[in-house]
């Protein structure tokens, strides 16, 4: 994973609420056995017509969306299926951050593990972003702030550990592997004793 520090980009805005992971990547693309190459199927059923041609009015197909790395979505994006193919597809397409007022739990977890920054902002900031699609904004991970010119910075929550991993481009498995002794100690205690705890 590449380290993330500051993401500066224009936004792509999808204002729908409850965008589920079936929309982000429909199930028929889940028979893959690799992570790569899912970007072309991102939002497939919204993005292409029955013959597989791009729908010109869908936001990702518009010229102004090219190269944008920040997706601003309506409340509760990523609900539903736990498929990590959703962040894989978003990352493969080129997104580095998802901004909303609520981000579904498993999707948020999966995003953090793939260098896709989940950014939960306050209602006012979100309303401004929805009203100003394509605005150039800045997301500063070290400061945990989303910055819009002419407005106060909007803080967003991010766990210290996830921030460390993203800033340094390291994955979480290394830390888990370093816990080997503690895991072995836990395993050596009989389940009976453990579960009565």
């Amino acid at each position, binding site marked *: 994973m590449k380290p993330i520090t500051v993401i500066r980009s224009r936004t792509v805005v999808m204002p729908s609420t409850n965008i589920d992971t079936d929309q982000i990547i429909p199930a*028929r693309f889940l028979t893959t056995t690799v992570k790569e190459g899912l970007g072309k199927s991102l939002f497939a059923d919204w993005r292409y017509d029955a013959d597989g041609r791009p729908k010109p009015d869908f936001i990702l197909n518009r010229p102004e969306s090219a190269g944008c790395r920040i997706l601003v979505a309506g409340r509760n994006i990523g609900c539903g299926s736990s498929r990590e193919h959703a962040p894989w597809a978003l990352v493969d397409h080129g997104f580095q951050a998802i901004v909303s007022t609520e981000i579904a739990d498993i999707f948020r*977890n999966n995003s953090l593990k793939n260098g896709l920054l989940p950014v939960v902002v306050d209602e006012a900031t979100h309303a401004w972003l929805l009203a100003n699609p394509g605005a150039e904004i800045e997301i500063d991970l070290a400061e945990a702030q989303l910055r819009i010119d002419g407005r106060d910075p909007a803080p967003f929550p991010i766990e210290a*550990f996830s921030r460390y991993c993203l800033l340094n481009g390291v994955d*979480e498995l290394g*830390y888990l592997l370093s816990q080997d002794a503690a895991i072995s100690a836990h395993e050596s205690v009989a389940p009976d004793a453990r579960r009565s705890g």
Partner: protein
Amino acid sequence: MPSPRTLFEKVWSAHEVAPQSADTPAVMFVDLHLTHEVTSPQAFTMLRERGLKLRRPDLTLATMDHSTPTRTEQVFGGAPITIDSAAKQIRQLEQNCAEFGVELLGMQDARRGIVHIIGPELGVTQPGKTIVCGDSHTSTHGAFGALAFGIGTTEVGHVLATQCLLQKKPRTLAVEVAGRLPAGVTAKDLILALIGQIGVSGGTGYVLEYRGEAIRALSMEERMTVCNMSIEAGARAGMIAPDEVTFDYLRGRPRAPQGAAWDAALERWRALPSDPGAVFDKTVHLDASALEPMITYGTNPGMVVPVSGRIPARGGDPVFDAAMKYMGLVPGEPIGDAPINVVFVGSCTNGRLSDLRAAAKVLRGRTVAAGVHMLVVPGSQSVKAAAEAEGLDEIFRAAGAEWRESGCSMCLGMNGDTVGKGEYAISTSNRNFEGRQGVGARTLLASPETAAASAIRGRVTDPREFLS
């Protein structure tokens, strides 16, 4: 005196390898890792690339369910699997399990089935365990008083390599369900009503504990239906305190503890329920006795009304309007007018024996309406065998429904069992998202009873018409 603790807190603390700190999440030990063909290949590849071993093959169990065919000739007769990539994914799971020493209940195994159905059937799902799987409906296992939730593929890799997960401690939400469900109203109606009440993100960040008279009165299979859909309210996990109903279900299961180990387990399990006075971060209330059969009308499980009710009118809300346009339904009209093209009975939500019995009870001696295609897919091969032993398959066939081998099937249409564009499907599954059951498919979620009644009439029908 130790302070009173919730069921969740007891299970959580017993599995903390390292507690949460200001700088690091908790390290949580996993007692049971279930895995399947769709969300595991990239995790096994990661192990291989990093030269890691599978830490605990004895706590890992694999099956195949999502992309598998349901036609007998493809499962048992050697006929080719229609989707090449699905066939490849199935072979990949077989190879990965052989290479890493994972027990696989494979394509022709009599114990194969939807991962959330076979765990309880085998008795590996037990109270007090931590259970994970690369599938959001892992919440099903919480019906036994386990802490069970879905994870992504990166985390599948973490568990394969370390048998642990990094976790932020969730909050707790008590769902107090008073009263008793009236006749003809099911566990599915209960959970749909709850999601309608708290919304599809009402449970985000929480572990739910379903409590109260109505929950205590449910069978294990009904409890699984409730916990299964916790994720549709945004909660990763839902739990129910184990009790005699739980123990009766598990006693004698092939992989449940036996003899002295059973007695010891019972003693541990009886200590699990939330202590009197345990504090939840939040509580919601529901009155089971006031519920009716429920059905969804929109494009998420929170868009739900009683079968006898009308589609709400919320003009001007663009998201609502888009959902109505997709569904081709008219706000303000009775949902009972909605036509039906396809009926699907199955899935990890409602694919157990009691679900098939409920649908068969409505269908017995009746027929599926002309032009309606009904598919009945048992949740596991064991469910299929048990249903056939009591003649349920004959009732479905005689009514004009198709009877298939087990799997996820039309719940998500990965294996080619799909609903056509623009068609209306009454489905006993868990998600009515756009395109979930096929491109352009329109899904209405309901109980097996409602699905069967609607199959007979060819439109959305209150099952109580057939249950008197």
